[in-house]
């Protein structure tokens, strides 16, 4: 018996929800970043599942581009973390409050 594609989509939705919870509730900057990567992965899984269902390889190619963009984003984001850490000696996002009123 073959696995219905909706199960993959539901799993991807669950991963996305878990990633969102992580991104919204964590204080550590790196943990927020990890949750964002989890959300990107959930989106990738959705794309590949639909590529399989519609028998169109475009989904896989979009995943290819998403991965490249995620790599670029991770590199720049972590470089920014290092730059912020030099100034503030922390990456706790609750402490990045210079512009608050």
């Amino acid at each position, binding site marked *: *018996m*073959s*696995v*219905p*594609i*909706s199960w*993959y*989509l*539901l*799993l991807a*939705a*669950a*991963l996305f*929800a*878990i*990633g*969102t*919870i*992580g991104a*919204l*509730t*964590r*204080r*550590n900057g*790196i*943990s927020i*970043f*990890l*949750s964002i990567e*989890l959300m990107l*992965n959930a989106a*990738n899984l959705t794309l590949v599942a639909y590529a399989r*269902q519609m*028998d169109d*390889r*475009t989904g*896989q*190619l979009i*995943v*290819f*581009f998403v*991965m*490249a963009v*995620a*790599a*670029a984003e*991770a*590199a*720049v984001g*972590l*470089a920014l*973390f*290092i*730059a912020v850490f*030099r100034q*503030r*000696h*922390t*990456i706790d996002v609750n*402490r990045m409050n210079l512009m608050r009123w």
Partner: protein
Amino acid sequence: METLIFALFAALALGSSIVVVTHKSPIYATLSLVLTLFAVAALFVLLGAPFVGALQILVYAGAIVVLFLFVIMLLNVQKEETAHGSRGPQLWTAIVGAVVFLGMMGLVFWRSGSPAVPPLTAESVSLKALARELFSTYLLPFEIVGLLLLVAVIGATVAARRPDALDRIGEGGEPEYLSGDEPRTDPLKSLPDPHRPSVAEPAYKEATS
């Protein structure tokens, strides 16, 4: 058989993603992310995309997460201290929201049903066909992504650089520190110990002075 494999890797992905989001130590969270990426790569292969699965391990698990680990070790990120009080209701709201979201998605999928998918053939998973499509229809996005990666490399190198005199021109006054009077040094370079001579000074200077 396919259902068994799917169930195994789906459970692995869900379990390790929950660990990513909840564990206090960032190193454990990162290593759980590797496990999640592995499980998702296996699901990609099950969905007839072995190239994307191999790329996932090569790029995501083999490079991006290593970058995360490096930065965690460089900045010596500690375990997150448990916050004071206001986390309980926040977490419960998040979980309830997630359950509602999943319930809605489940309802949508149950109502729309899944069409039967044709079994995978050697042609549908072939790398040659994928590559042909990538380099003909999607050539422009491919080149643009290459340019994007170049820009990201340059940007990351510039952003993480130690600030030199040129970068300090626009600064006026003391930047805000968190705790009292900390000396204005680069936290990524250790402070020189006033009681030990620095390495650059030759030892014979003491004798001749």
